[in-house]
């Protein structure tokens, strides 16, 4: 099966600019996750979707981050305006459903904020 697709792979912006990341999960996977991974740390969950509904966005900085999964398939994560501390890799993952399922990750989108 095709893996989780993410784009762009790399993005460099200046602080206060905006950026958007796109994710296409594995076909048929109901659950989609966005994680933020700062260099040298483990991935931190930003938001989790079950189909097109949000089930957890408790760690999403909602003043600047937003995400949507309108048709329950692909998803976009937006940052506006970006801060220096947003420099990280943004990982998208998907799994079959709400139960015990393995997360399959994309390669990530590396953001550098100058």
């Amino acid at each position, binding site marked *: 099966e095709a893996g989780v697709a993410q784009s762009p792979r790399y993005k460099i912006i200046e602080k206060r600019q905006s950026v958007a990341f796109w994710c296409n999960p594995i076909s048929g996977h109901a659950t989609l996750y966005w994680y933020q991974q700062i260099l*040298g740390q483990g991935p931190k969950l930003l938001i989790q979707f079950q189909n097109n509904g949000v089930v957890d966005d408790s760690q999403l900085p909602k003043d600047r981050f937003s995400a949507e999964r309108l048709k329950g398939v692909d998803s976009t994560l937006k940052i506006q305006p970006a801060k220096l501390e947003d420099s990280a890799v943004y990982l998208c993952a998907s799994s079959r459903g709400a139960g015990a399922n393995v997360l399959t990750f*994309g*390669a990530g989108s590396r953001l550098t904020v100058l």
Partner: protein
Amino acid sequence: GESVGLHLPTLSVQEGDNSIINCAYSNSASDYFIWYKQESGKGPQFIIDIRSNMDKRQGQRVTVLLNKTVKHLSLQIAATQPGDSAVYFCAESPNPNSGGYQKVTFGTGTKLQVIP
């Protein structure tokens, strides 16, 4: 690609030796545990998982041990190879069969360096 393990604890192992990577978790409600491997420039990749009703599970060259009493998890890699060099993360989740959604929380990771 840029390494994800610049500031992580590092374990250096000679090729052919066995590796043991340890992980302490904090949430007593966690019932499902997963080990992921992350190579430079890639997303984490599933290695092996274990549920709380087990204390040991074996895969191909890998074994996961779970001690719920002290909230400790370990990953053993037999006959470590250069291709095993990566950052290893343990992840935990509450009971996946509770009917609720699965929230997966990652630990800080350990960088494994295999010396040829």
